[in-house]
């Protein structure tokens, strides 16, 4: 299948890894680095400490602020504009060092000891510079187009009488459940040169000999990236529009502004905090993407920072170089979050604090059908079409005699489940690690949330911080740190399922914690006092009242961690070895081997497990969900 076959990336394929597997590489890398004088050892550590301290603070604080968008618009607005105690920030500054410690140390370490050689290399090698420029371009393009689409859809859904608003909203939110790299693979199926379904359709219709779109290009990468990040923009803008009081717009209308003018002079400026947050979060999301650049960029020889970091883990691994290359990712993250704080400042956008719901939808008249068509088309192209083609392909046998009923088959599923050596095994690995990560994360989060919220320990803020810390580090950067930390020394986890589980657990702990914490926060203290006054002891109150009330929060946290772990690629791809393949890495392996049926079947299985988990979660939020006044 000529056009759909991606060139083998970087000469080596993970499907047929060379003799030295991960653990041996790392052992070799480690011995290469050991001869260090004590002086330079400490110097390098102090230097890295000073370099990262202030940055870490900002990153954690701001990411934490922005994540409260998931608790609803008011919570987000409060978090972003609220004041903070300086003591907390100092505390955070000290603590944020620990997990990135190894990363920074590694980036300043060469076999000659403390050195800036890795960074010098960044500026010498063209490949790295290109990668950084490409990442920047990808980030900017994705955030601009993502915001345009996200804002348009959010406005149509929350502010107008467009028909099928709910359907559009559900589809946009459902795109979140589709892992970014699966989305990228679907797009290869759709728009691969020559063999992509869209191109074949085009050729069939026009008689042209070439397709009209080539996904293996920077443009292709941008399209897929936009499709991946725009739901995030949608959430931010939707929140902003939902809380805004239309009385304000109407006040402008009464003063003589027409609808368009009122939108641009009142509505958009009021949404400014959301717009800034939306731009920055989509930019960061695009910057941290690994799956799409690996699936689309690498074959097209368009490299970004994340794919370069990965390539540095190919034999011979250059952990120090990888660390040096991934730190700028963290720096950009920090810089952007600083910028956001500066732009929004302390100015309370008090007007946004509106009660929500006190507004009227704009009547689009006959245009509403045009709006519905546009929104429908966007959702169709970004969500329905890619997933449909994936499901279709998983049941379809490629044939030169065109479409025929006989070509539908379960063969691909049979192959990945029974014949492909990594098929069933990777599914088992994914399930085991994700289940373990979710359960442990939920338990840890529950304990931490309880202790901190009920102020049962001193320095409870520290607990909160520890739980939220992993948010500050992009998945892949975090994985580099994990490799540096656990590939030598007293505990070697590299090359085992433990390190995968650990990565999922730590990376997703913040989500579990937020979920538990929010659930606990919604348990009004009166609910507990009521039991106490009636004669229940503290422990009895926890058992009878508090625990049942936060059950849903706990379960939903569990499900989020499980689903996130299952779909993770960017951390897994650096941590797995041939013995510890998980679904996502298995999918990438069969993709690089151009086994499209297997790619589609495995992806559908992944989506299926994910969908079942998420749907089960929705089911549980049934009848005794907290009533509003409780």
């Amino acid at each position: 299948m000529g056009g759909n076959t991606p060139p083998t990336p970087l000469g080596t394929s993970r499907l047929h890894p060379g003799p030295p597997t991960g653990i041996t590489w790392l052992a070799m890398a480690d011995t290469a680095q050991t001869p260090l004088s004590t002086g330079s050892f400490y110097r390098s550590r102090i230097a890295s400490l000073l370099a990262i301290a202030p940055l870490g603070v900002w990153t954690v604080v701001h990411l934490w602020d922005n994540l409260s968008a998931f608790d609803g618009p008011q919570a987000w607005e409060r978090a972003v504009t609220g004041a903070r105690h300086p003591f907390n920030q100092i505390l955070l500054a000290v603590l944020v060092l620990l997990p990135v410690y190894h990363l920074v140390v590694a980036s300043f370490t060469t076999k000659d000891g403390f050195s800036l050689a890795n960074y010098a290399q960044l500026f010498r090698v063209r490949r790295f510079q290109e990668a950084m420029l490409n990442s920047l371009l990808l980030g900017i393009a994705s955030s601009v187009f993502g915001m345009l689409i996200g804002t348009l859809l959010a406005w149509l859904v929350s502010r107008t009488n467009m028909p099928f608003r709910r359907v559009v909203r559900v589809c946009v939110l459902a795109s979140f459940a589709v892992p970014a790299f699966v989305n990228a693979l679907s797009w290869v199926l759709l728009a691969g040169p020559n063999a992509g379904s869209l191109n074949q359709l085009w050729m069939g219709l026009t008689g042209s000999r070439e397709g009209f779109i080539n996904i293996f290009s920077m443009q292709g990468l941008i399209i897929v990236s936009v499709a991946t990040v725009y739901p995030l923009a949608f959430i931010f803008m939707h929140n902003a529009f939902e809380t805004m009081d239309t009385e304000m717009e109407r006040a402008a209308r009464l003063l003589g502004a027409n609808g368009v003018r009122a939108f641009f002079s009142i509505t958009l400026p009021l949404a400014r905090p959301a717009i800034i947050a939306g731009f920055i979060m989509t930019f960061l999301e695009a910057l941290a993407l690994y799956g799409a650049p690996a699936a689309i960029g690498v074959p097209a020889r368009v490299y970004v920072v994340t794919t370069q970091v990965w390539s540095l883990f190919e034999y011979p691994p250059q952990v120090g170089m990888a660390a040096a290359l991934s730190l700028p990712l963290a720096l950009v993250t920090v810089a952007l979050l600083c910028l956001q704080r500066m732009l929004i400042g302390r100015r309370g956008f008090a007007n946004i604090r509106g009660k929500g719901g006190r507004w009227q939808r704009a009547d689009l008249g006959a245009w509403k059908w045009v709006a519905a068509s546009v929104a429908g088309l966007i959702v169709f192209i970004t969500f329905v079409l890619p997933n449909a083609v994936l499901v279709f392909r998983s049941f379809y046998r490629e044939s030169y005699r065109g479409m025929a009923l006989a070509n539908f088959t379960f063969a691909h599923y049979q192959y990945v489940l029974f014949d492909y050596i990594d098929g069933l095994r990777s599914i088992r690995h994914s399930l085991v690690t994700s289940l373990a990560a979710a359960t442990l994360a939920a338990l840890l989060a529950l304990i931490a949330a309880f202790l901190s919220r009920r102020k049962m320990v001193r320095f409870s803020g520290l607990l909160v911080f520890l739980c939220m810390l992993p948010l500050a580090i992009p998945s892949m950067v975090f994985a580099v740190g994990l490799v540096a930390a656990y590939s030598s020394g007293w505990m070697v986890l590299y090359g085992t399922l433990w390190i995968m589980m650990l990565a999922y657990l730590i990376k997703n702990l913040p989500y579990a914690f937020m979920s538990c914490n929010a659930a606990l926060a919604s348990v009004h203290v009166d609910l507990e006092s009521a039991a106490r006054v009636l004669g229940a002891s503290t422990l009895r109150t926890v058992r009878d009242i508090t625990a049942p009330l936060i059950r849903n929060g706990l379960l939903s946290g569990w499900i989020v961690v499980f689903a996130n772990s299952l779909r993770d690629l960017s951390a897994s791809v650096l941590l797995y070895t041939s013995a510890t393949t998980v679904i996502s890495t298995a999918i990438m392996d069969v993709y690089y081997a151009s086994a499209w049926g297997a790619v589609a079947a495995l992806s559908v299985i992944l989506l299926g497990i994910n969908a079942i988990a998420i749907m089960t979660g929705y089911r549980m939020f049934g009848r005794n969900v907290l009533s509003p006044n409780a």
Partner: protein
Amino acid sequence: MMKLELINVVKRFGDRAEAVIRGLSTTVAEGQMLVLLGPSGCGKTTTLQLVAGMLHPDDGSILVDGKTVAGPGWGLPPERRNLGMVFQSYAVWPHKTVFENVAYGLELRAVPREELRRRVQEALDLVQLGELGARYPSEISGGQQQRVAFARAIVVKPSLLLLDEPLSNLDATLREQMRVELKLLQRKLGLASIYVTHDQAEAMVLADHLVVMRGGIIEQQGSAEAVFRRPRSGFIARFLGITNLLRGRVIDIGPNTARLEIGGLGTLSAFLADDVRTHMTRGEAACVSIRPLELTLSASRPTAAANAFQGQLMERIFLGDLTEYLAQSGQIRWRIHVASSTRFVPGDTIWISFAAEAGSVVLDS
């Protein structure tokens, strides 16, 4: 024996010098409803939490049924005080049915199955929710949740029932209706209660004993009628209902009355209560409070009245049963309520008069 005694209770928060409760003493008798009334921040909710055991006093003591439950720096936990409490937020447990909510307190007291079922049903019938036992709180209205909270509090037969602004989340009509219902229920059960509110109308309806708080101290206490008719200070007079508050200087103090010089109006005499007299000195500032309904309007100077002033009628406002007139005498603006049948029109020159005992001399605060 008193159901509750607060003796000189003091409460500070943190290391702030200013105490939130500054020496508070009062009692609740068997079957009595005490209403704690005051503006927000006056310490009424803190007082309730001290009684409930959620907070402990820094000084003074609290006695329930003659037994000391809290003293300086210590207190029994809430679960050992045998209280019932209705919260502003209702605090009805959303994961339990109406029946389970009410039954919980009895379960804690290990009441046998049969008796428990009977008592819960009685309590639910009492608040007219007999049919809704199987429902979850999310499936009933706010007013009904409020009744569940009430039933849950009384079913355990507490020594004392605490109500923390229980009606403030209801809409105006329902609040009005529940107010009376609550009063009748409390009477029927003969439960000693403390009711916290900032709504003076609610306080008037419910109180056997009204305690008006301000800035952490009791400003005045007594029956609702006594406090309304004979306020001690300008603050109380304004806080309870509408009043004409005239600020002036004391020129003469008699056995039951005092004479005041009101700037720009002249002198007038009004009733002087004993506990106000002790704070009065000739020549010092004081106020007179006269309720709008106590004032009489006439076209010519009345002969009998102790106090009469000429004024200009500014406005006539129809209030239904009553008519409110706004009149001006010099700097003084009067609010006068009279039966709707009287007819004066704005611009008329009229006389405003009242008997000496209709007005009260109050402290200037």
